């Protein structure tokens, strides 16, 4: 292999190896080749000349700077000089690049690699009965997805094929990243040439992070996005603690127990201290913001391995100040040729198709610095075509070039060595036959550290084209043959042309530097058998010998009469009258991003008028004023200012006030759903029985269309709860349905923190199938014990911290307690800072949890579902808990066998603050009529019934100070109904939150019309685009 390389091309010969990182620190006057490497020389020393002068090319020395015809001198891997009139050194080999363009070698900012096939990364570990597979070393982190000490270079072997594929795009350096885990380990920069000791430039470039979790049926922690984020937070805390613990221990060894040694925490702590970037892979714009939250909390230097959706949240993403690496993964045109196909395509998909190619341009216009990557493409070869499209649509070429060269170079700490063609910089170059951003341009070669890597085939090796062959023997009366050679240079195909339509395929054709051979069936030429040809090629001439079928030898010579052209097909198309239309240049999308992108998205938050006056309506205040017929509600600055009769707008607000005629209408407070899973990207972290460390607020999903649909049912607030897979689930997030705002703006900051508990069949895994019989607990008895055990641990944890915090002396000399997010959340329950919403069904389990709470001296806020609450309503009321139940669900599992729709009424009469909840994206749209079921089943009054979905859930969530009723000082969260809100015939007409109108029947109709016309426009655009016709053509071809 090595021998062959030596003869392939002079410039290809391996240069002596040098340590670039050293050079990168500063430009050393005169280039000193570091001939001696660490490895002892085997046999003779190799000292290949490495001085080249590339002359006559158009040189882009850096983005925006071009020398129209200049010279680059390379010496021993570095650029010795560059300029218009540089003297060519006497010892240089001159390479004429007249007509060519040269750029600084590109940097591939993301290359996820597997060290070895089958290296699946972490699927070991687990805790609390998760089971362990491959045991890790004792000094490694307990979780198999926490691998921060791992270096991507460990065992890494880059395949020549993959390196070549990147070279073909102009890349000379790549940022290689580990591919598996939550903390994936350290990335590295490598030169994209021969894979060997000289390739790595630097390791420990970033700590690589991803929101990765196990997938069913693997149930190792984390098994959800919730768990992955919690694991990130806990591990980052642990790393900080670890550093501090060892510090203090080092100074006070005689009074402290030695902390465990852990290589992963040690390494991670070093990454944090060194301010190394944390590079998060983020699959959409919300994932970017999630990474941003973690970086902010732990003051990490944030880098993002992006996704192509960044344009959707430009401002928020820009505000992160993160370095973005973005792909050019433009979606294929959605299939819309038929109605049936179109129905499968959402408005968001259509709009993404139109806008995605503008992602980089929009980032550039917003002055966000980014690098471009060829990763995340189905086929890396699409990179240049897609980039060309982005440029055609208006992406500035200078910025595009910077995104491939100077921007990543400076971010990766290579700003003084890579990314430019300048004296002292590493001789990484891209040689093309024209403008790189024109997709017809070909990359001909790259130079990596002063060494040429041919990309386009060497003309000496390329046998393709039209040849005229002269034979010394007669072949069916012919001595002249016309050959056409096409296909891939390395794998050519050919034919003999006999006439207009008559050709004979060459058989066994092989063409390389050393030999050209083929056989030719002679019968169709009037001969017999097969004639065998062999020879050699020198540029446009070739010659050789042949063996006729009778064994007689002959000689032949050939001259190339026309070069190979890939566009032959098009010419043929023209001949067939199938004229290809000239494609008009693509234009940037004229769409303005919506949020959430797609149907019913908004361009911004609704306006808040200075004052709103609802006049002459039936006002259900849900407060002391009861129901006011012909009543008015006045709201100023997003708050309720007065409720009564004959109110008027204060003078100072009159300029910007909205008056709603409530005649014939009813007004109620915004409805509140005390049990919801809407707007959540992840619901259950079910891998463990206790997961109080996970937080719904980390996974709030503002993109959920059910937010809008529930607004259309009068809902304004929802309690986003963790699922019921485990006895102690995750922390909740109370949101207001501020549709169109980002997750952090949906979360209601005034709502107290809470947590989900669950009892009964779900946490016992009773209905999970026969494979789930080993996780503790499997009985209600065990549920009781695991909850008690967790609280006991939390109590001790809290005591430990309290004692530690009291003594300043201990703080100085004692290893501090470790912050444990799981126990911390439980300790917050014990101290009353966190309220419990407990999923429960049967009376026995309800009582048992009440007794636990009694024993640990706290109060359960609500029992949710609580379908047998009617059996122990007195005990629930005495304890002081609320009950949030389904109006009428029953019969779906054994523990609801005694569920009755009278449950709500009985609990309410026994003094329990009771609500009806949805636990369903659909049912949350009709909580008003759910309330009516408390009238039907149990005979509550209309007001008592509406309280079940307004003020009562507000009390349960402890948000009744500002929500749940129409009373002075509370938020202007209200609904205008077409009639009695408890009637099945009634519709919500308007839904307002804090004096902003988030839903309106008329506006909804307008949006429907916009969606209809918007879809139609985009579909027509797709049908008109040649992309669609091409793709369908290609598809047809495939089927043939």
């Amino acid at each position, binding site marked *: 292999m090595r021998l062959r390389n030596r003869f392939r091309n002079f410039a290809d010969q391996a240069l002596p190896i040098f340590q670039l990182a050293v050079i990168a620190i500063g430009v050393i006057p005169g280039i000193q080749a570091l001939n001696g490497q660490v490895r002892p020389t085997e046999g003779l020393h190799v000292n290949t000349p490495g001085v080249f002068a590339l002359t006559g090319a158009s040189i882009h020395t850096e983005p925006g700077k071009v020398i129209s015809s200049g010279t680059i001198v390379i010496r021993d891997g570095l650029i010795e000089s560059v300029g218009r009139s540089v003297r060519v050194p006497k010892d240089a080999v001159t390479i004429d690049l007249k007509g060519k363009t040269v750029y600084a070698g590109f940097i591939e900012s993301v290359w996820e690699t597997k060290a070895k096939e089958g290296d699946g990364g972490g699927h070991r570990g687990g805790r609390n009965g998760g089971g362990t597979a491959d045991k890790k070393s004792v000094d490694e982190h307990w979780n198999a997805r926490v691998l921060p000490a791992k270096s991507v270079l460990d065992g890494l072997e880059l395949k020549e094929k993959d390196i070549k594929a990147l070279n073909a795009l102009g890349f000379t350096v790549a940022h290689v990243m580990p591919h598996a885990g939550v903390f994936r380990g350290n990335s590295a920069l490598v030169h994209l040439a021969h894979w060997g000791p000289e390739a790595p430039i630097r390791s420990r470039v970033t700590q690589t992070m991803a929101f990765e979790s196990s997938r069913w049926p693997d149930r190792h922690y984390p098994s959800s996005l919730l768990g992955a984020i919690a694991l990130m937070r806990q591990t980052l805390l642990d790393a900080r603690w670890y550093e501090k613990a060892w510090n203090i221990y080092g100074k006070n060894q005689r009074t402290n127990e030695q902390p465990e040694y852990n290589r992963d925490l040690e390494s991670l702590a070093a990454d944090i201290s060194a301010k190394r970037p944390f590079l998060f892979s983020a699959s959409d714009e919300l994932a970017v913001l999630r990474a941003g939250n973690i970086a902010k909390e732990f003051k990490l230097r944030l880098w993002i391995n992006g*996704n*192509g959706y960044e344009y959707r949240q430009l401002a928020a993403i820009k505000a992160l100040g993160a370095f973005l690496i973005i792909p050019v*993964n433009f*979606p294929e045109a*959605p299939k819309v040729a038929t109605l*049936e196909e179109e*129905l*499968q395509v*959402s*408005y*968001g*998909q259509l709009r*993404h198709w139109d806008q995605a190619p503008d992602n980089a341009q929009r980032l550039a216009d917003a002055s966000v610095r980014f690098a471009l990557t060829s990763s*995340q493409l189905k086929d890396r070869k699409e990179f240049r075509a897609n980039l060309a499209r982005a440029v055609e649509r208006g992406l500035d070429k200078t910025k595009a070039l910077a995104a491939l060269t100077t921007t990543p170079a400076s971010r990766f700490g290579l700003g003084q060595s890579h990314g430019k063609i300048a004296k002292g910089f590493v001789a990484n170059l891209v040689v093309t036959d024209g403008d790189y951003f024109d997709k017809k341009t070909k990359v001909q070669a790259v130079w990596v550290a002063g060494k040429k890597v041919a990309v386009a085939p060497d003309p000496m090796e390329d046998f393709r084209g039209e040849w005229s062959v002269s034979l010394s023997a007669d072949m069916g009366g012919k001595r002249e043959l016309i050959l056409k050679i096409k296909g891939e240079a390395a794998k050519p195909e050919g034919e003999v042309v006999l006439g207009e339509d008559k050709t004979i395929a060459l058989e066994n054709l092989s063409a390389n530097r050393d030999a050209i051979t083929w056989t030719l069936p002679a019968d169709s030429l009037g001969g017999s058998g097969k004639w065998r040809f062999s020879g050699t090629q020198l540029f446009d001439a070739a010659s050789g010998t042949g063996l006729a079928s009778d064994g007689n030898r002959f000689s032949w010579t050939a001259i190339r009469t026309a070069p190979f052209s890939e566009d032959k097909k098009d010419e043929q198309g023209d001949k067939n009258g199938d004229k290809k239309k000239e494609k008009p240049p693509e234009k940037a999308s004229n769409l303005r991003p919506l949020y959430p992108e*797609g*149907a*019913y998205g908004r361009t911004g938050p609704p306006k808040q008028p200075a004052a709103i006056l609802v006049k002459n309506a039936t006002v259900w205040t849900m407060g002391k004023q009861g129901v006011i017929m012909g009543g008015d509600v006045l709201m100023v600055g997003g708050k309720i200012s007065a409720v009564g009769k004959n109110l008027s707008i204060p003078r100072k607000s009159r300029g910007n006030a909205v008056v709603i005629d409530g005649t014939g209408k009813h007004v109620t407070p915004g409805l509140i759903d005390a049990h919801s899973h809407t707007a959540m990207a992840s619901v259950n972290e079910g891998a463990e029985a206790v997961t109080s460390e996970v937080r719904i607020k980390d996974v709030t999903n503002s993109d959920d269309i*059910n937010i809008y*649909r529930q607004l*259309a049912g009068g809902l304004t607030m929802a309690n986003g709860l963790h699922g019921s897979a485990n006895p102690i689930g995750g922390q909740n997030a109370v949101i207001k349905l501020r549709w169109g705002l980002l997750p952090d703006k949906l979360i209601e900051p005034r709502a107290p923190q809470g947590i989900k508990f669950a009892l009964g*069949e779900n946490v016992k895994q009773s209905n999970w199938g026969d494979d789930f019989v080993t996780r503790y607990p499997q009985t209600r008895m065990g549920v009781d014990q695991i909850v008690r055990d967790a609280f006991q641990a939390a109590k001790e944890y809290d005591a430990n911290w309290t004692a530690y915090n009291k003594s300043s002396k201990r703080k100085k000399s004692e290893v501090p307690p470790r912050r444990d997010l799981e126990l911390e959340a439980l300790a917050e329950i014990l101290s009353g800072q966190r309220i419990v919403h407990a999923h429960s069904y049967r009376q026995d389990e309800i009582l048992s949890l009440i007794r636990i709470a009694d024993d640990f001296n706290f109060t359960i806020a609500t029992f949710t579902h609580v379908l047998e609450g*009617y*059996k122990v309503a*007195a005990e629930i009321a005495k304890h002081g808990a609320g009950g949030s139940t389904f109006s*009428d669900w*029953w*019969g*779906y*599992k*054994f523990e609801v*066998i*005694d569920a*009755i729709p*009278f449950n709500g009424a*009985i609990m309410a*009469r*026994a003094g329990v603050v009771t609500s009806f909840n949805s636990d369903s*994206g659909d*049912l949350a*749209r*009709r909580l008003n*009529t759910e309330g*009516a079921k408390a*009238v*039907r*089943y*149990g*005979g509550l*009054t*209309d007001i008592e019934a509406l309280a079940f979905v307004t003020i009562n859930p507000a009390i349960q969530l402890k948000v009744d100070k500002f929500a749940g009723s129409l009373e002075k000082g509370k938020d202007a969260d209200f609904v205008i109904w*077409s009639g009695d809100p*408890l*009637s*099945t*015939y009634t*519709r919500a007409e308007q839904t307002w939150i804090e004096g902003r109108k988030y839903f309106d029947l008329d506006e*909804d109709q307008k949006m*429907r019309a916009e*969606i209809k016309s918007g*879809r139609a426009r985009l579909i027509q655009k797709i049908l008109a685009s040649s992309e669609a016709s091409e793709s369908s053509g290609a598809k047809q071809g495939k089927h043939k």
Partner: protein
Amino acid sequence: MNGKRQLILITIFLTLAMMSLSGSDQVPAAKQDHPIVLMGGVIHTVSGDIISGGEILFINGKITEVGATVSRPANVEVIDISGKTVYPGFILAESTLGLTEIGAVRATNDYREVGSINPNVRAKIAYNPDSEHIPVVRTNGIALAQVVPTGGLLSGTSAVMMLDGWTWEDTEMPGGGGVWMSWPNMVVRERRSGQRRPAEDDPKKAIREALENLDKTFDEAEAYHKAIKSGTGNQKTDLRLAGLIPVIEKKLPLYIRASHVSQIKAAVNWVNRRGYRMVLVGARDSWMVTDLLKANNIPVIISTTHSLPSRRWQPYDEAYTLPATLADAGITFALAPGWHPQVRNLPFEAGTAVGYGLDRDRAIRALTLDAATILGVGDKVGSLEPGKDATLIVVDGDPLEIRSAVVSLYIQGRHVDLNNHHRMMNEKYKQRYRQLGITD
């Protein structure tokens, strides 16, 4: 409002007080043994006028007279229902009532047989008349239900059951039901970019094979039918194929579950080609093909009005407005809420449909006469007219409103017990709080 509430409370209380005398479970009502006149109510005949302050007479389980006044035969019991309304008993067009007790407990589920081709299995013989669900459902005015097997391509044969009786043979309403089929999925679902389909999946091939299998099954059934009819006696019995003979002979309809527009179109086309009778079930996208359904006179069972739009970009009220859209297009339809713990909400689904544009009379028809007609029992039930079964409800208000209550249910003139497990548990535990002195 309070007056009305009190009335309901008193009514419920009296009903329950009466029922609790009859023991711990609901006893099927005895055959009607004397003529009954309900007088003074607002009678919604459905087939004819609404008669305010009218009277209805039924004898031996059949309605004999409806009008402003009716005759008073010997031994008649006259019940004053002034201030109340009378409707035909509601009909649940599709359910697994009696075939499942507790979804999560496998032992209680009898609605899905193994395999894909099961037209011969009969829902009625697995119908448990003692299911706790039955008294719960009928308390909301539902007198009849079509009981339906699910799963596979051909799920089985359904039956229409009266929701009171000692055995399944007592409770079956002859002539109802049909063979249930689930039209194969025809949609290749696109995934969000970045997500790739596993290479081994070939959804298009799967669709083609499913449709071929469908045709093959019916070709074989047609051949079987021909062989049997030929009288040669050569054809050995094949229970599966025999199960399709009522469909081939057009004695029973094929109930075809299809939601996506491509399924609906394909199903209608397929049925036209083969000449069977069809009822479309599910029908989520049917608003797109109302012309096709109307032209082919295909009735629809909508399941379910209380559901989310099927696609992100479709209007929030897509399912709410579907009944109104079908009504406007002149298509006959009935309703079914789907999930079995929810079926008692049937009348309220109709109420929502009215809120979203459906004519109220059409909503009532969908719960009564139209449902009866679709289910094949329209000659016996579904309207209040002489000759039909005295299967009717007395309501203290508008039955489509949640706050109304059904005060009486008659099935074939039998006065049905409206107590149920839920009401009994309610009474039981109310006692607990009285004993504790918390409530009166």
